[in-house]
């Protein structure tokens, strides 16, 4: 029998279990009964905290998508050229995501299932990168320090590259890249990205 928890603790424990199950099986693959069973409580207990499965799913997605890295230290550290800052931002993000791969699974699932909240993943996690890359490339382009590339294409290229590296190492665990660590893989991809935009402002 489950121990009696106070309301906020119970709510948090429901969310934690729901997050893992939704990340694993998607919205349609999980029932309220299954979540309740995993928690060792009756479905009625779940409904006391969340009126429906939809509400629980949305709360679980929100709890993940609201996480946002702070890049203040990354900006204040030296060297402060574009390539160095982008590398530090990426390191912070990769560390955070690899510590909680459920984030990636939920992101994929929510996109496939068309959840309205899917856009929040982009706004909270990826937009820092796309905005920073686009802004910086526009500035660097004026000084002739990058190739004549559309900033939106560059940020899309970066996003696709980093996402795929995270999927490869954190979700799929592909044999092909087994011999290379996530950090090494990301570092090499970053170099490839900077070379591809002909970045020449290294400090």
């Amino acid at each position: 029998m489950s121990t009696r928890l106070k309301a906020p603790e119970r709510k948090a424990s429901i969310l934690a279990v729901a997050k893992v199950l939704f990340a694993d099986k998607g919205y349609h693959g999980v029932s309220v009964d299954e979540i309740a069973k995993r928690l060792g409580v009756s479905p009625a207990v779940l409904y006391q905290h969340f009126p429906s499965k939809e509400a629980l799913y949305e709360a679980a997605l929100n709890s993940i998508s609201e996480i946002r890295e702070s890049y203040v230290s990354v900006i204040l550290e030296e060297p402060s050229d574009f390539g160095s800052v982008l590398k530090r931002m990426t390191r912070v993000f990769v560390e955070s995501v690899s510590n909680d791969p459920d984030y990636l699974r939920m992101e994929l699932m929510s996109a496939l299932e068309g959840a309205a909240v899917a856009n929040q993943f982009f706004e909270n996690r990826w937009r820092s990168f796309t905005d920073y890359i686009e802004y910086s490339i526009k500035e660097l382009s004026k000084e002739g320090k990058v190739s004549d590339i559309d900033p939106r294409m560059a940020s899309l290229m970066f996003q696709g590259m980093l996402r795929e590296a995270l999927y490869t190492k954190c979700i799929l665990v592909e044999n092909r890249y087994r011999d290379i660590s996530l950090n090494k893989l990301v570092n090499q991809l970053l170099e490839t990205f900077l070379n591809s935009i002909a970045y020449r402002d290294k400090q």
Partner: protein
Amino acid sequence: MSNNQIELDATGLNCPLPILRAKKSVAGLTSGDVLHVIATDPGSVKDFESFCNQTGNELVSSGEENGKFVFDIRKA
């Protein structure tokens, strides 16, 4: 001698751009000058607190006006 106040419009910019712009703006100020920042990213509230803690500049005020976040930062 009076201190200058410089305005930085960071509306529409997402983290880390407001911090990046503020860092550059503060670098051009002299001690005692105030940077007035206007931002729309809700994350900027925490970010500017952290910015001031880490740089030693003073966060004179932090508030919300007409749906925008405004900060006054005095250069140390």
